[in-house]
C-alpha cells in the first residue's frame, strides 16, 4: 500500500456541500485502503479533545459506511485504549485543528510520532486540517501562542505548509517572510483546498469550493513566489436526508415492481 496523506487548509464537518465533499473524499480514501468498511479514527488532540470537535466528527461519519472512533489523550473516556493497537488497526487517521504546539507536545509525551509514522508506512491514510495538516510537514506557521510563528512538525512530508491561506492574511504574510528568511518552501492552502500525497511523488491538489486554491510557495532570487496549482474539483455528494429519500424511493419502486404495479 502506498503511503498517503491528505492535507487540508481548513474545513468543517457541517452538512454544507463543500464540507460534505471533503468528508466524502476522506471516506473514499479510507475505503480504498480497507477494501471494505474502513476504520476512521479522530485524533482531536490539537483542540484539547473538545466534545464539540468529537461531536462534529461523529455527525459527519456516524451514519456513513465506516467505523468511526476517537482517541482522547486528555480524558479517560468510557474505555481506556491501547493507543498503538487502536491506531494501527485504522484505515484513516484524521487529525483535527487547534494548537499545533500543543498537538506536537502532547504527541511527543505519549510517543505517538513513531506510531503515526509506522501507520503511514503501512498505508494507513493520514489526514487532517489546519494544525492537523501542518503537523505532517517539516514546518508550519502556527498561531498557538497568539502571533503567527514558525513551528517544526513531524517531517513525514518535506517542506512547509501554511493553512487558512485566504482567510488569515497575517498568517500568510508571516509564512512568506519566513520562507524568504530561509524556512523551507512549501505550500499555501486556502480553506477547502487540499493536497493528496502519494508515496514520494508530488502532491495532487483538490478543491471542494470554487475559487479555493492551493499554492506552491518557493523562495527565488526575485523573492518568494506563490504559484497556484491546478486542482481537481470535488463534487458534493447528496446530503444524508436526500440519500435516505432516494433509498426510500428505490425501496418503494422495487416493492411496486414485485407487486406488478410498474413495468
Amino acid at each position, binding site marked *: 500500500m502506498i503511503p498517503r496523506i491528505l492535507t487540508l487548509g481548513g474545513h468543517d464537518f457541517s452538512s454544507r456541500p463543500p464540507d460534505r465533499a471533503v468528508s466524502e473524499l476522506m471516506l473514499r480514501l479510507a475505503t480504498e485502503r480497507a477494501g471494505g468498511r474502513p476504520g476512521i479514527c479522530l485524533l482531536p488532540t490539537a483542540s484539547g479533545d473538545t466534545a464539540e470537535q468529537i461531536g462534529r466528527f461523529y455527525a459527519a461519519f456516524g451514519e456513513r459506511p465506516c467505523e468511526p472512533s476517537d482517541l482522547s489523550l486528555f480524558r479517560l473516556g468510557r474505555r481506556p485504549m491501547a493507543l498503538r493497537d487502536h491506531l494501527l488497526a485504522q484505515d484513516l487517521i484524521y487529525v483535527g485543528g487547534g494548537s499545533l504546539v500543543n498537538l506536537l*507536545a502532547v504527541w511527543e509525551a505519549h510517543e505517538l510520532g513513531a506510531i503515526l509514522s509506522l501507520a503511514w508506512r503501512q498505508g494507513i491514510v493520514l489526514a487532517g486540517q489546519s494544525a492537523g495538516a501542518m503537523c505532517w510537514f517539516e514546518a508550519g506557521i502556527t498561531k498557538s501562542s497568539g502571533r503567527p510563528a514558525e513551528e517544526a512538525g513531524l517531517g513525514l512530508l518535506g517542506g512547509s505548509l501554511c493553512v487558512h491561506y485566504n482567510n488569515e492574511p497575517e498568517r500568510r504574510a508571516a509564512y512568506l517572510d519566513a520562507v524568504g528568511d530561509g524556512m523551507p518552501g512549501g505550500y499555501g492552502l486556502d480553506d477547502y483546498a487540499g493536497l493528496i500525497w502519494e508515496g514520494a511523488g508530488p502532491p495532487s491538489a483538490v478543491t471542494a469550493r470554487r475559487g479555493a486554491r492551493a499554492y506552491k510557495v518557493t523562495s527565488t532570487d526575485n523573492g518568494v513566489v506563490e504559484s497556484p496549482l491546478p486542482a481537481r474539483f470535488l463534487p458534493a455528494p447528496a446530503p444524508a436526508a436526500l440519500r435516505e429519500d432516494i433509498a426510500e424511493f428505490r425501496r418503494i419502486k422495487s416493492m411496486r415492481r414485485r407487486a406488478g404495479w410498474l413495468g
Partner: protein
Amino acid sequence: METATRQIVAFGGGGFSMESGNPLLDEYVLGLARGERPRVCFLPSASGDADHYVVRFYRAFPAERCEASHVSLFRREQGPADLRSHLLAQDLIYVGGGSVVSLLGVWRAHGIDEILREAWERGVVLCGLSAGSLCWFAEAHSGFHGSSRRVDGLGFLPFSNCVHYERGSDHGLAYHAQLREGMGAGFAVQDGAAVHFVGAELRRAVASRPQARAFWLEPGPSGIAEVELATAYLGEGPQSTEDAAIAA
C-alpha cells in the same frame, strides 16, 4: 530578602472537581494562601482546558472569596499575554485533573514547568488533584489509557505518588508492583485525602471525608511497607491539639 515558604498540597482526589458540595479541601488550600482575598489561578491543562471544568472552577472560587483567573494553553490568544508574570503574581495555583502525561507535555512546550518552579520558590502555594497532584513529584504512577506506567514528574517533591489509591485495587496493586520494580518510595493518597508539604517535608495529611487516608509506601527486604499516616479530618468533629495549633 525573606525566604519564602515553599508549599504544595497534593490531593489524591477531591475538591470542587470531585466533591460537589464538599469544599473542605478547597477551603484548606485557600486558607494557606496569602491575604484576605487571595489571587487564585486555575490550570486546567490536564483536561485539555475543558470549558465546563473552567466554569466549575469559577463557581467554586467566587469573586467574594478570592480573585480567580485561569490560564488556557489551548487558547493563548484569549488569556494573559505574559504567562510568567501572571503566574508569579498568584497566591495559589490550582492544577486540575486529567492526563498527567499530556499535562507535562503541554507545560514543557509553553515553559510552564520553569515558571511553576519559580512560583513555588517565591511562596506561591501549589496544589491540585489527580494529574494535578502527580505532576509535583519525581515519579508518578499513572493509570491513564489502560496500562499503568511510571511517569517522570516535575520533581519538586523527591518521592513517588499514587492518587485515587485504594488498598487491593488493580490500580493500587500496580503501584506496589512499580515500587518493587525500582520506583522510589512515596505517597499513596485516597480520594478525599491530601498531603501538605512545606519544602520537601510532609507537614500533615488532611481529609475532606472522615475515613479518607494517606499512606507512605516504601519498598523493603520483606516487600512493600505501607504506613498509614495520621490524617486530620477537616470537617466538624474532634480535632487534635496539633490541628488546633496549626489552624491558629
